[in-house]
């Protein structure tokens, strides 16, 4: 698609923490505010070189997922935001992952300032938490019980009324 006339960059190179390089279309990269900022800064300086953006917190398999998401959303960027097809895709997209991946994806979305993805992940995690019991949450997310027995009894006591 036509980008703004002043721009000279059409692609950027993104480097993951494990040193894999990804060549990303500018429109796709703009879905991440972090990348967009980098591109904008470089364009202001008027550089014509291909720029390399190192992402020290994102591994390549997570970055692949983030870019997959960005690519899909870049395709739909000009459409109505409430596009049903896109929502469906979002849901299917997240459903594939285990929770460890989902957590990493959430952190990556936060780091790369991809707000819609971050929101999506948060909502997805919240949806998985709801309707679960304490034990189930611990089990599914693999959380150690860090409370002392006394503390746990106190909290249980405090909350008992809500579970009747």
């Amino acid at each position, binding site marked *: 698609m036509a980008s703004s006339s002043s721009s000279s960059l059409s692609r950027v190179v993104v480097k993951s923490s494990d040193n894999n390089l990804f060549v990303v*279309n500018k429109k796709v990269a703009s879905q991440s505010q972090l990348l967009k900022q980098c591109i904008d800064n470089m364009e202001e300086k008027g550089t014509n070189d291909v720029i390399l953006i190192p992402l020290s917190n994102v591994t390549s398999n997570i970055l692949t997922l983030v*870019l997959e998401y960005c690519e899909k959303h870049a395709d739909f960027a000009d459409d109505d935001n409430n596009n049903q097809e896109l929502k469906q895709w979002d849901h299917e997209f997240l459903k594939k992952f285990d929770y460890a991946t989902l*957590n990493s994806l959430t952190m990556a979305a936060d780091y790369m300032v991809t707000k819609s993805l971050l929101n999506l992940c948060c909502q997805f995690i*919240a949806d998985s938490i709801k309707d*679960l019991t304490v034990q189930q949450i611990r089990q599914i*997310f693999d959380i150690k019980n860090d*409370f002392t027995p006394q*503390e746990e009894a106190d909290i249980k006591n405090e*909350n008992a009324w809500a579970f*009747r």
Partner: protein
Amino acid sequence: MYYFTWINDLWKHLFGGSYKQENTGDASIINLPNDIMSDILSKLLAKSVLACRQVHPQWLYLSSTPYFADLHLMRVTPILLGQERTPFAGKGLSDYKLLLYSFNFCNRKYCYYIYSLSTTFKRKLRSFPYFPLVYFSPYEVGVVASGALFWIVRCITNSGDWSFRRML
């Protein structure tokens, strides 16, 4: 997506040895940044928040801050009971607890109750720290809580606006 794995090989060739091992980092949900976790918790209904408070000390802490209470409130759709005396008026709200206060004429004090919609169980709250309601008759103010753990959602200020107040 346009990514070329050979570039990686080239990279290794050029800068071989100097790159560091993948920083695996613990991808546990506990390690999510606090603001993200608060965001996630605030999307839950009260009952789930309560469950989460028992899961991990960090979550207990996160869901106890004033910041979290505000966040949770922002996501709540307040339901006005208006003149309704009974808290069971709202149908289909089984996830919610309602909070209602009444005036006790014996000791001239306001009492606050939390009602569970699914049962007739109610629990008296400790005395309410805010006292903006003196001008209203007890049942006029249908106090609504979603969540109901921390907050009363309601009260009319002097200017007639809605405002939200925290319980705890």
